[in-house]
């Protein structure tokens, strides 16, 4: 059987790539895609733990399904905001969203 840690390392890699995407992308949609990678990494963790730690209880899978559902809702709201921002500013570049002085 594949060791648990292999899955966890792959998830860690996926998570780190997602973090990289979140921190480097200039486009709001790009940032959101990075977040989706991070969420997938989490889900991979959850499912791996389910399989190896509590295969007889559905906790991990339930958690993963909830995460997926919420991610979809979140993405819908986020993308609506992206579109609204694009309408008012003609840009969704995070660095150019500077009406608010910081």
């Amino acid at each position, binding site marked *: 059987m594949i060791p648990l840690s292999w899955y966890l390392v792959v998830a860690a890699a996926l998570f780190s790539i997602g973090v990289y995407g979140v921190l480097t992308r200039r486009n709001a949609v790009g940032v959101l895609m990075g977040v989706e*990678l991070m969420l997938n990494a989490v889900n991979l963790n959850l499912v791996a733990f389910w399989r190896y730690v509590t295969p007889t209880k559905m906790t991990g899978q339930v958690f993963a399904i909830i995460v997926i559902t919420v991610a979809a809702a979140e993405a819908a709201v986020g993308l609506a905001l992206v579109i609204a921002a694009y309408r008012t500013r003609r840009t969704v570049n995070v660095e150019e969203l500077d009406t608010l002085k910081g």
Partner: protein
Amino acid sequence: MLLRLIFVVVSAFTLGFALLMVTARSLFHSALAMAASFLGVAALYILLEAEFLAGVQILIYVGAIAILIIFAIMLSRGTMRTAEPVVNKQWPFVAVVALSLFGLLAFLVSQVAWPARSAEPMGDPIAALGKAFVGPYVVPFEVASVLLVVAMIGAIIIAREKE
């Protein structure tokens, strides 16, 4: 052994497309790479014997979220034509940070003595999931459905063209 080989291939596929996603110059390519990477994750779920979840993953992540993102990209496509770089100037620094984060996390997850045991999953995972959602997890299930409704209303209010 074969299983491990498959795992390595699937992981390489997943991570490769993930890397492509964060480095692609075109946001559109990025989105496609993301969808591919999500497919890889679904394959990993199958390896973990969570077939139902793999199905959900493909339906929602690949089917819904990726498509949603591609729509958003196309609706705001004015932003894609610019010749400016798609990543900010700190990317080499962030790359170092992300690499060290990975090192740290990888070290951590392989060092911790997770209480793994070698039991087999229950007979019918779909039935078990169904029971879980009406049993102990009924509250999260209900909350999630309210959340979906609210998110839908909110997304409509915000994305609607006319006031």
